């Protein structure tokens, strides 16, 4: 459980940076080398490498073992964990609110019945 939340923290932290989000978006299309990733950014390869390390630690990307190229690729699993949780949010409220609709209908009926019960003796007492 702790490991799960620690990883989520790392995923969110990793994606809090615009450069890293752009790198992940690029890797969603296909794997790329550090040089290819550095190209569209006005950034040195060491700077890009630093970002890649953060993404790697969060488990968002992995790097090939081919000595010189070491292409980076996207790992979907941690994002899956995050989005599965987040996706539940809307469904949770939709389902709950539909149930609340039904409960409110019931409460309205009860209230009407209660009001009717209260009204009867009052009418009787007025007649007396």
């Amino acid at each position, binding site marked *: 459980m702790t490991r799960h939340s620690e990883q989520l923290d790392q995923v969110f932290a990793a*994606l809090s940076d615009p450069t890293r989000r752009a790198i992940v978006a690029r890797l969603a299309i296909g794997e790329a080398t550090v040089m290819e990733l550095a190209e569209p950014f006005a950034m040195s390869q060491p700077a890009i490498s630093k970002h890649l390390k953060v993404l790697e630690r969060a488990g968002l990307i992995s790097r090939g073992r081919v000595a010189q190229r070491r292409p980076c690729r996207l790992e979907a699993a941690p994002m899956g964990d995050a989005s599965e949780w987040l996706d539940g949010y*809307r469904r949770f409220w939709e389902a709950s609110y539909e149930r609340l609709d039904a409960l409110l209908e019931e409460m309205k009926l009860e209230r009407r019945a209660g009001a009717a019960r209260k009204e009867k003796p009052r009418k009787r007492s007025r007649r007396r």
Partner: protein
Amino acid sequence: MSGKYPLQVTGNGDREIVMSRVFDAPRELVFEAWTKPELLKRWLLGPPGWEMVICDVDYSEGGETRFVWRKDDGQEMGMTMIGVEFVPPERIVCIERFDVPWYPGEARTTLTFTERDGKTTARTVVRYESQATRDMVLKTGMTTGVAASYDRLEEILEGVLAK
């Protein structure tokens, strides 16, 4: 009856998510359903298969509200809220924290109830600690389906990048 009033989810500013829903009932009833444990246990359950096993409610300033849900397969989910402001039957403000966080840090939730023509709008504003968190919650929360596919990932990222 279902889907009579849609659930609206939108972003507000950098760090907020606003969720709004109309209920065909007067405000006191909606407020009652939100504040009485025996009523909360009947509706605040999410998808089928979950039950609320702990429902301690104290929305007052500094008070602690604790919800724990359990699924039929034994899975549990819990959250604690600390009261910030309680103005019946208009407003409930608290700081929420999930036992197993699914976003970093805390979130401040402001729930307001407004009545018009016998209908009540419940508006929830959740303020997260950072814009990145908010964007993730918003972008993913807007879509449906559970599959963690690359297509979905791309969609999420495009949304984030379009910002």
